[in-house]
């Protein structure tokens, strides 16, 4: 139903004009702990990224080092070790999550303890990937498809191996694109502003990963997208802080997801 509700009337685009502006923010040094943690059903070294909030819009995140990080399912505990030291990224040994269990994240940072929990739900198989020729000559673009289940899809696209691109910097020959299917119904999503399109040449590799979303993970993403991808529509909504499942004033999210993935070469 929501897919049907997503309409974009061309007339609405005429109503407003958005331009870059100079703006002096009332910045405040909050220095809150930000957690990016994702545990999946893949048997691998999972990571937890800890940073602090910053005051400027394009400021590089400040890593949180020397914290104690662990994930538990109630019976087993996986300890995460910072690597390299000073990076703020903590890795576990090779572990995997399973459906039906609730996982807890524990962080001890300079004596403050933070806890979060999430539960893994299954993910439905992905539909075949779709891409189409772009308006830019000899380039293609992804055709995003909503999935039947709530999910988050990430596409890593690379064409650095193609002739003519070998010497280009990695950031101009690699793209990271995301697509979300949430079951919530929001006006700001229906009329979300246009995204900058990503084009890639024939022969590009596309690594596609689809993550399942628990109810609380969906709620988090809904609020995060309201403040990022969906912000600035002509039916914009009141601003507010993004939800979190972290305790004690930390922000971010600890997610546990089932993952399916595939790889495609653009033909």
């Amino acid at each position, binding site marked *: 139903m929501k897919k*049907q509700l997503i309409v*974009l*009337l*061309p*007339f*609405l*685009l*005429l*109503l407003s*004009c*958005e*331009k*870059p*502006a100079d*703006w002096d*923010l*009332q*910045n*405040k040094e909050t220095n*809150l702990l930000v957690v*990016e943690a994702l545990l999946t059903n893949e048997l691998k070294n999972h990571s937890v990224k800890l940073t602090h*909030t910053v*005051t*400027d*819009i*394009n400021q590089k995140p400040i890593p949180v080092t020397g914290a104690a990080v662990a994930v538990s399912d109630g019976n087993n505990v996986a300890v995460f070790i910072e690597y390299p030291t000073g990076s703020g990224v903590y890795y576990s040994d090779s572990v995997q999550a399973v459906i039906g269990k609730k996982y807890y994240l524990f962080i001890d940072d300079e004596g403050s303890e933070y806890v979060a929990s999430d539960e893994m739900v299954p993910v439905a198989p992905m539909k075949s990937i779709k891409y189409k020729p772009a308006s830019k000559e000899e380039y293609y673009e992804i055709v995003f498809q909503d999935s039947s289940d709530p999910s988050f899809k990430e596409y*890593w696209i690379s064409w650095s191996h193609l002739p003519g691109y070998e010497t280009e910097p990695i950031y101009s020959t*690699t*793209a*990271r694109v995301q697509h979300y299917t949430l079951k919530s*119904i*929001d*006006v700001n999503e229906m009329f*979300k*502003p*246009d*995204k*900058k*399109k*990503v084009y890639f040449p024939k022969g590009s590799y596309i690594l596609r990963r689809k993550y399942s979303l628990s109810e609380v993970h969906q709620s988090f993403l*809904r*609020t*995060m997208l309201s*403040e*990022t*991808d969906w*912000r*600035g*529509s*002509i*039916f914009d909504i*009141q*601003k*507010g*802080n*993004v*939800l979190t499942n972290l305790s004690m004033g930390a*922000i*971010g*999210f600890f997610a546990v997801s089932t993952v399916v993935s595939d790889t495609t070469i653009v033909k």
Partner: protein
Amino acid sequence: MATILVGLLHPLGIEFIAVEDHIVLRPKIAKSEKQSVSPPIEKPHGNYTLHGTLRDAVSGEVLIGATIWIPTLSKGTMTNAYGFYSLTVPEGKHTARLSYIGYKSKEIALDLKADRKADLSLEREISILPEILIEASAFSGSIEQTQASRVNLRPASVENMPAMMGEGDVVKSLQMVPGIQLFADGSTMFHVRGGSRDQNLILLDEAPIYNPSHLLGLFSTISPEAAKDIKVYKGNIPIWQGGRISSLIDIYTNDGNMKKSGFSGSLGLISTRLAVEGPLKKDRSSFFLSGRFSHIKWFVQQFAPGTSKLYFYDINGKVQFQVNNNNRLYFSFYSGSDYFSSDNNSAITWGNFAATIRWNHIFNSRLFSNTTLYSSKYDYNLFTSVSDNNRWHSSIANLSLKTDFSWFVNPEFNIKYGVSFSTHYFDPGNYTLGSGAPTGQVPSVSTRYANEITAYAGNEHTFYERLSISYGLRFSLWMNAGPGTEYQFDKDYNPVGSQKYEAGDIYHTYSNIEPRIELAYRLLKREVFNLYYTRSVQNMHLITNSISPFTSFEFWLPSGPNLQPQLGDQVGAGWVHQFENREMELSIDGYYKWMHNQIDYKDHASMILNPLIEGELRFGKGWSYGAEIMLRKTKGKLSGWLSYYYARSFRKIQGINNSHTFTAFSDRPHSISVVLNQMLSKRLVFSANWFYSTGTPVTTPSGFYNYNGHTVPLYEARNNQRLPDYHRLDLSLNIQLNRPDRKFKHKLNISIYNVYGRKNPVYVNFNKTELGNGEVKVPGDLFPSPKLLPTQTFIYGFIPSVSYQFKL
């Protein structure tokens, strides 16, 4: 001197009257042309009552708020909304002065030996001078006319104001009235004295208009051509009206010419309007029919070829019958709608409908009643498939019956009382398939019903020439009725149960008493001081967490088990001084307003298709205060006003902004409006409006963090900063194409909206990346984390327009 004048003028068939300090000459009125005065009804006591209706001499339209004043007795009265007046004075000979803004004042000689009916008329002043938007205070009449916090808008002057795309607009013109703030450019939503946007009641011939917007708010549904009288109450809403806690915009439409047929119209860039009027039976009944139809589609399609349909329209109609001397019937209706659709089979539509049947009855010379049956409806539809009629829709509707009595006991006591009964329907938004098939997992939101009984009684008590006090009580009983489902929530707003009610069940009630009192004291001959206190109750609440200037997916909910009535208490004081030359006025108003049970929304509230919507609401209190200063020049070749107003507004809502006080969206401390009309020649009037206000409060980040490639804002406080100050200059030139004495009148209006192209932002955001050509978009590639920049969204730039108006 009188003897000399009579001697000179009588042979020429001219008579004279003294109007204030002037001698006015006029052709002698033959006996048959004299005002209609019924045979006297002898009564054995010393006071007699003159009553009747005061009308426009040419069209027969009743005049609302005109004054009948007997200077020697310092007694007078005003016509009510139906032109009725009643004045009880001692037996004997008196001279009564009739006056009404825009009309020639007139004196009539009375020799009262009994009660009598006198239907009177006034002639419109043929003036080439520009009309001023806000009427002057009528110091020549009774003291009640200088009511604090009320302004009368002149519909004709709204037509002449500089306007966006040349579309004269009643709601947009309110921006120039001190104390009223438009939500933003491109919006018909407005805030009055720090109130919220749902706290304004717009009545069209006594029926509410729930959403006065066309093209999402670029224009309003209230066309000035159809309006006869517009009163704006910014605080002390009269005792016979209620239901909103901030303001009342009370609009009466044209009755139609009772004497001869005519038509008028206009042609602009956006729309075409045509109106016809005339008598059905001369001097007994009339009709008025007006239609406005947009022709904007071709223009939009140049820029947005995917637009398949785009239109709006308004139709106003009215018929009135004089049944007999004591009974008059009115039937009026308004229908307006918007429709946008695109090639992908989706569409947005909304529409208002309002209809009113009114019966005026004169029981006797002192008792007048009006009984009104009215109904209003507002529907909003978002079609996901036009062809299959699959849509999300919300609506609100009412059916009401009320009777209002005016008992003119004597010039000192004017008692008003009445009662009303309403039934209300609310659909907070549901998704339906045209086939009637079940919508699967889409949740169903319970529709609501409520009944409302109100009763009021009040008195306008004039103690003597200098002092009058209006006081009264209004009682409202709000009853939630089945069928419907209500949910119960715990203190953390989690649902803990639900209760289903059957049709006919009354499951929750609220009763409230609203005291209102106003004191007016004439300090000097042309100086009045007002003081008032008013309490208002609001049982219907607009639910939206949108910060968009455009009308979107808002819907209404009734007061109920989870939603208490909004209460408003306002105290205010006003002072009006008219300068000796009577061309200028200075007024100062101050107020303080308390608003209880104010509604806000938890962060990222889920508003659409949410059966548990009340769990998303948060409640608290609000307060506002301010002062409004206005210097007006109401006559002469140069007219207009300069106003400054200081206004603050705050909210304290549990769970919002850490439950701390924050500035309300309507808080804009400093505002200045300048309105000038300069007659350049007999046919040319130049108008200029300049408006300034402090920027709107906005919520901006105090910091950021990175999550999975996204730069996420972190907010420390609600409405912590302000958008840049708003200001705008509009100019217009009205060119009268005919001589003033010609029957066919036509003119050209050339307007420039936002002359210096000020980009007044409506949003500021921090989630876009620059494309290199000045265009900005949400980043699509998150590797590496994209560089973001602040952006501002604005609606209008420089907009020139031209429109042509005609009338016969």
